[in-house]
């Protein structure tokens, strides 16, 4: 009687629960490995873990903090998800985020409308539209270069991240600098997204709750992206091009046009995240408005298996990682955890394609 491990290709459909199980397992494993590394360099993983939950889900104000950090991730993650559906590697969400923040700031800093007299809803709507335009512009460039010259979008989107940050710095340090500080003056109140804390005088439980309207933008965007992907003709085209570009070409789909459009939509979502961050959290344009949301969004999208609603859930987990990362030492730890999670996720995908079976056979080995 011998026992052996058989690895074989799945011929049947993957059970519906398995992708979720592998995703959850990957996160769990990543925490364990992260803990081992922490212990090796002399930290106390259990105390850190306890601290992690305390600092991220321990009370209403910190839960609100976690969701505030999740808000830009939802939008950026959705942007990555729709681009990745078409196997379009937009790694430039960070730059698109900054351009969105910049274009939204134009509305009140140039200014386009007089923020003192214009109603809040007009200012906010204008900022959101401008933010999406800014991000879309930053997505259009690599999209057009890919469509026209077949230029690899991974490198161009990445290079444009740096360009966007230097561009923003010029305005922050120079033209819009507030009395020589490296930030713009604070936006007028009409350019602030409404927050729970704004109503603390009426409802005292809201005091200190910084959750702002941006999260609604994120949830709406999730529904829209879900509808596009699952229900619309365009979504079908996007998925077809992603899965089988040759078949898509034979079917007469305009791939170049779709490359540009999807890059622009992806950029617009990241740009909206940038707008939501300056208007809902920072209330001014300054350096480092993003602790790498654009890059974390990539992991979020992948961990969510490009499912728009899963993006929302995963964003909350990563929002927690960012909140905790600000306080947990050493500071690179949350970065490290993100990398490990992503690695486990892509490794675990092998379980979706192959089946591992334990086979017992009673055959007698020759000569035994």
């Amino acid at each position, binding site marked *: 009687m011998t026992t052996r491990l058989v690895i074989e290709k799945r011929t049947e459909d993957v059970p519906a629960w398995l992708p979720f199980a592998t995703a959850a397992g990957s996160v769990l494993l990543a925490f364990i490995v992260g803990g081992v590394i922490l212990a090796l360099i002399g930290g106390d993983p259990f105390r850190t873990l306890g601290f992690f939950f305390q600092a991220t889900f321990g009370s209403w104000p910190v839960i609100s903090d976690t969701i505030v950090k999740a808000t830009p991730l939802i939008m950026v993650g959705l942007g990555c998800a729709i681009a990745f559906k078409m196997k379009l590697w937009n790694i430039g969400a960070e730059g698109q985020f900054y351009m969105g923040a910049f274009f939204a700031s134009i509305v009140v800093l140039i200014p386009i409308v007089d923020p003192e007299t214009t109603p809040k809803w007009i200012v906010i709507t204008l900022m959101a539209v401008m933010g999406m335009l800014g991000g879309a512009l930053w997505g259009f460039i690599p999209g057009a270069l890919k469509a026209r010259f077949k230029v690899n979008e991974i490198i161009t989107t990445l*290079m444009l991240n740096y360009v966007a940050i230097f561009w923003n710095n010029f305005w922050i340090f120079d033209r819009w600098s507030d009395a020589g500080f490296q930030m713009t003056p604070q936006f007028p109140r009409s350019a602030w997204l409404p927050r729970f804390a704004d109503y603390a005088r009426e409802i005292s439980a809201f005091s200190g709750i910084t959750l702002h309207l941006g999260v609604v933008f994120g949830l709406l965007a999730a529904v829209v992206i879900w509808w596009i992907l699952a229900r619309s003709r365009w979504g079908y085209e996007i998925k077809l091009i992603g899965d089988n570009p040759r078949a898509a070409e034979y079917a007469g789909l305009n791939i170049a046009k779709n490359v540009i459009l999807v890059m622009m939509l992806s950029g617009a979502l990241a740009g909206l995240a940038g707008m939501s961050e300056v208007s809902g959290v920072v209330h001014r344009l300054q350096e480092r408005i993003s602790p790498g949301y654009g890059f974390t969004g*990539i992991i979020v999208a992948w961990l969510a298996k490009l499912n728009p609603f899963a993006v929302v859930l995963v964003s909350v987990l990563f929002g927690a990682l960012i909140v905790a990362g600000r306080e947990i030492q050493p500071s690179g*730890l949350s970065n*490290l955890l993100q990398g490990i999670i992503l690695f486990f996720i*892509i490794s675990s995908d092998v379980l979706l394609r192959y089946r591992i079976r334990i086979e017992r056979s009673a055959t007698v080995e020759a000569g035994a």
Partner: protein
Amino acid sequence: MNIELILHAGLATGTVLLFAAIGEIFAERSGVLNLGVEGMMLVGAMAGFGTSLALGNPWAGLLVAMVSAGILSLAHALVTIHFQADQVVSGLSLTFLGTGLALVLGEGLTGQNPPLIPEADIPLLAAIPFVGPVFFQDHSVLVYIGYLFTPLCWLYIHRTRPGMHLRAVGEQPAAADTLGISVYGVRYFYTFVGGMLAGLAGATISLSVSPGWYSAQTTSGQGWIAVGLVIFAQWNPLQAALGGYLFGAVRRGILDLQGPARILGLTNPFFVNSNLGFFLQMTPFLLTILALVWGSRAATRKRLGAPAALGIPYVRGERGL
């Protein structure tokens, strides 16, 4: 603005890009796209710097940098070769992982002063006017290693038997397999080589070209520029070295442009308003995009380009390449 100084510095910083880009050329020639260069370089920079500090020997630092970045690259190799995961996503996670590891383990290295890779002059050659001071004087030993390394790599890839196997695996893995070449073995090996060279590139920064550990700022995107350079260089080590030196010179030229009050008799706007320097800092990144457009057009025109099997996992008996 001294052209001699700019070229001299260009060769030094270009050496970093040269090592990283040639490493990536090896990996990509075997069919493995590894976008984790930036992360592997950071690990190399941190490990090399830390080792030199601990052991007092910069050469040991180089060795540890290469081995540790090489080991890191094996994670990418395992996931993409055996598990057939998407190479783009795996490469990205390698960058996250490498950056995180380097920051966590590099805690406390900032401000330290380990022994560095020595500088040297080449006798006789250094005496040639202009060429001597630019190419053969006051350079890190690593720069001279780069001069020799580049043509050797070209010869290896194009004129030797193992080099031919490497190209076969990247272009026609199924055909290579029928000839008894181990596709997986070759891919693992050159992914590891790519990782080692990225580690060397990182340590070249931290132990030689711009010494020190400044966490993620140490590499500041040079790993990504190196990946772009590979396409610009059409997977050719000689062109990669040339491109690397050119980029190095541009980076230095940008710094120098902000120094003098007047250039060619005109007021220097970058001196008057130092904030305009942000536009100068954009140029290497914009230049990379231009280089890519140029490289992609040349590739389409000449019908050359990426190794045919780049990014595609090989499974024996499956349809594909």
